[in-house]
């Protein structure tokens, strides 16, 4: 399966979904003009990957900002991870946040309450 590599822009995050090297990362800031347009291909890719995933999938999320439209699409991504876990795959979500950023810490906690996937909050 091909990998996805998107460099970060001032309004969109860096995305690396690379099964061959087993790297899955979303990082940076997300406030695209059209959040669905940006995230739709990533969600489609992940759905296809979920059918035949690696033995372990660790998704690293290291955001410093996302708007509400992005927050909803991020949940859609995490829900695909939940489907993978339900299907018996090993997945972990690592949520990185700046130790001074209480809002980002809280956002991580809230995602962990919304989905049933092993979830780690990690400060940086």
């Amino acid at each position: 399966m091909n990998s996805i590599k998107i460099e970060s822009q001032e309004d969109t995050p860096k995305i690396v979904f690379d099964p061959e090297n087993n790297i899955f990362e979303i990082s940076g800031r997300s406030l695209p003009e059209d959040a669905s347009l940006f995230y739709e291909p990533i969600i489609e890719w992940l759905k296809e990957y979920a059918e035949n995933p690696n033995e372990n999938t660790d998704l690293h999320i290291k955001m410093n900002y996302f708007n509400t439209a992005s927050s909803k699409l991020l949940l859609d991504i995490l829900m695909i991870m939940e489907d993978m876990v339900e299907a018996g795959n090993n997945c972990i979500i690592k949520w990185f946040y700046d130790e001074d950023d209480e809002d980002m810490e809280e956002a991580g906690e809230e995602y962990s309450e919304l989905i049933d996937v092993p979830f780690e909050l990690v400060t940086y």
Partner: protein
Amino acid sequence: MNEIFHDYVFDFYRKMKINQINLIYEGEVTHQITKAFTALTEENMAKDAEPNALQMKVFHIIVESLQNISKHAQNLKGVKDDLKGIGTFLVAKSLTDYFIIAGNIVHSDDLGIMKDLLQKINKLDKKGLKLLHKEQMKQGKISERGGAGLGLIDIARKSGNPLSYEFKQIGDDAYFFILTTQITRTKNK
């Protein structure tokens, strides 16, 4: 005579200073405008050495307020459809608070839903807002307008103050909706 413009500009300048307005805009809120205003405000806050947490809150509320205008602002009925996304936007700063003010036209059909949501939000405490946010995250879908239905809830959560708003009638079936979000500066000092 052009003096009418000079008087206007001078009057405008004085009112901006008296009301401590840092930024004012009236027109179409494009994505370029959103990016420019957030970058400008970020720069100014960094210069003022505002705490990071406050900077992120102000940044977030500016983004959501501007995206509310670009996604939801209507025009007067009968006016061409391509004039949507127009609004008025202000950032003011006092010694104690930041104020983010957004104004745009809404149709009277939407008035009931908006008032209900705003009243509901203002009745909730921190915990209640968290629950409402969670419900909307679970049940909401990205709408045709590209929003997640989370903007106002999130603005209220991040600001920590009640939303102040007003609907001023400007036609038979249209209102000018004004939303002021207050973010307290002094808490972190």
